[in-house]
């Protein structure tokens, strides 16, 4: 993906840029809102990663508002040191697609960037999701593996659906909490891991090849190849 990073802190910018490049993305970098807006409006990007507070008179929220008013729909991920809920709401209301609070683990940022950049297209809603021999039917809400029906609870179904929609991508624990449970809170313990491992047991029981993989220091990924 071609990603525009607008971040005034040189150290954070270097770290994010290096990581994204290592993950195979092209990164353009602007250090203030004005340059960022100019680049975002004049060139084609797949994704914008914006600091919420920027020097140069144009902050992240203004930048997105301006882009959206021009009809630019490029996905936007906010990075911010402002963690209060209304700050988050403000960022999303202005047209941001996701919001990540500093400090963050790079794996979290990468997972969110890739999830946003490859969002499923809205115009062709799939009725079935497939990963290897695992099939999830969105209409009948059933899960089968190699033709064999697997009983899952409604929440497990949603968890699996989210993983399968992002097959081949890392999904972090926080992303699961936000997207599958729709809460912004700190669960204190590894409850999400327990949920995933229960689902994993159901899916992999009786099969040699595991489908849900743990990505160290990041989260989970469902993929066909081991």
């Amino acid at each position, binding site marked *: 993906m071609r990603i525009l990073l607008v971040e005034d802190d040189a150290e954070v910018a270097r770290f994010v840029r290096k990581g994204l490049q290592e993950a195979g993305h092209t990164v353009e970098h602007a250090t203030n809102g004005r340059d960022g807006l100019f680049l975002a409006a004049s060139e084609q990007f797949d994704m914008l990663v914006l600091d919420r507070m920027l020097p140069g008179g144009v902050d992240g929220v203004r930048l997105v508002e301006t882009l959206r008013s021009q009809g630019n729909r490029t996905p936007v991920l906010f990075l911010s040191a402002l*963690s209060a809920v209304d700050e988050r*709401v403000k960022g999303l209301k202005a047209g941001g697609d996701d919001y990540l*609070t500093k400090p963050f683990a790079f794996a979290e940022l990468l997972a969110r960037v890739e999830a946003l950049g490859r969002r499923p297209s809205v115009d062709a809603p799939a009725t079935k999701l497939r990963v290897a021999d695992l099939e999830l039917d969105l209409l009948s809400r059933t899960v089968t593996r190699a033709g064999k029906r697997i009983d899952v609870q409604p929440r497990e179904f949603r968890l699996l659906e989210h993983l399968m929609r992002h097959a081949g991508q890392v999904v972090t624990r926080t992303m699961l909490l936000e997207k599958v449970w729709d809460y912004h*809170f*700190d669960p204190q313990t590894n*409850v999400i891991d*327990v949920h995933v491992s*229960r689902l994993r047991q159901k899916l992999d029981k009786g099969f040699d090849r595991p489908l849900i993989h743990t990505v160290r220091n990041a989260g989970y990924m469902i993929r066909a190849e081991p």
Partner: protein
Amino acid sequence: MFASAAIALVAVLWWATAGALDRQTDAAIRADALALAERWREAGATGLAEAIEERLAVDVENESIYLLMEAEGTRRLAGNLDRWPGTTPAEGNWFRTRVLHDGIAAEARLYRVELPGLRLLVGRDESEREQLRRLLTEGVLWASGAVVLFALLGAWLLRHALQARMSLVFATTAAIAGGDLGARVALSGRGDEFDRLAQTLNAMLDRIGTLMEGVRGVSDAIAHDLRTPIARARAKLEDALSDAPDEAALRAAVEQGIADLDGISRIFQALLRIAEAEAGARRAAFAPFDLVPVLADAAEIYEVAAEAREQTLATDLPERLELVGDRDLLLQAVANLLDNAIKFTPAGGVVRLGARRVPEGVEISVADDGPGLSPDDRSHAGERFFRADKARATPGSGLGLSLVQAVAHLHAGDLRLEDAKPDEPDGRVGLRAVILLPAP
């Protein structure tokens, strides 16, 4: 203001009385003159003279003035004036002049009537009316003076009283501006507007005080309690840098360092949430919602954690519980309670999450089978970073209950801690944490 209104009233009164007197005199003179003219038409000059003499005879107050003379010449036919007044104006029938009648010099209001071959003057002595008018004027002036005096005195007294009552407020606000946030306005106990103003001011100051304490609490906590983990992480990294035998050990130390920093970030985040909740800053995020699905979600999220420790999580929830509040924060509060309960309950134990409507509002309770809290520990449980001695071995930041308490307070509710099973013989009384939220 009051004085000018009073003076205006007196002026109107004065014009009304004095004016009425004048009009009355004029009306009497005109009626008299008309009657005399009629008499002349009936009985001629002789009859008219007789009528005048008759009137003068019955006029005991010596007020009436008459003079009948030939039109040309100076012969007096009747009346009590010796001669025609010298200052008769050329134009108009009405005039006022000084005359001598019955040996008295007096101010008179006169009306001139021209009859064929005769001239007639009808009038009234106005000395008495003048006197009356003077008296009236004097009265009015005195009254006005008194009004102005009383108005000034009243204004001064009122101002003085206001100043006396307001001086308490001034003194307090000045003290606060000077930095003493503990100052409060003293109440007079009269329950009047000033007391209400003082109460409102005091409530405002209490609120500011709470906010300030929240800020101070956070900075205290940051200063005292974040330093320790930061120092620990720093020491570990420094140690690894100088003493790590190989690259693997260095890598492990760096990873540990990142994990420590993440832990610090989480404590920091929790502190900010507590502060936000305590300061009431998150009330902007309040919205009406049904608490039951939120509690069911919390139970669902933690059920697996309980099962992993061979515990059971039982729920007792009603159909609906409508509430106005912050959904994420309430979930966080319940999550903290469930997390605590699961941590302190032994294998095979039961954690119960319940909610119900009570007369005071809504009650959310989390009960466990753990060792419970001593009454002394209970009173400290809401403090930041407090950890009961029994809990030192269990992982945790000591911020969980403090956030629960802050969230309860944010919703104008309270957190109550009690024994879940006070009669348990083996001492495992368990802890029952109750969040009591008032009904909206």
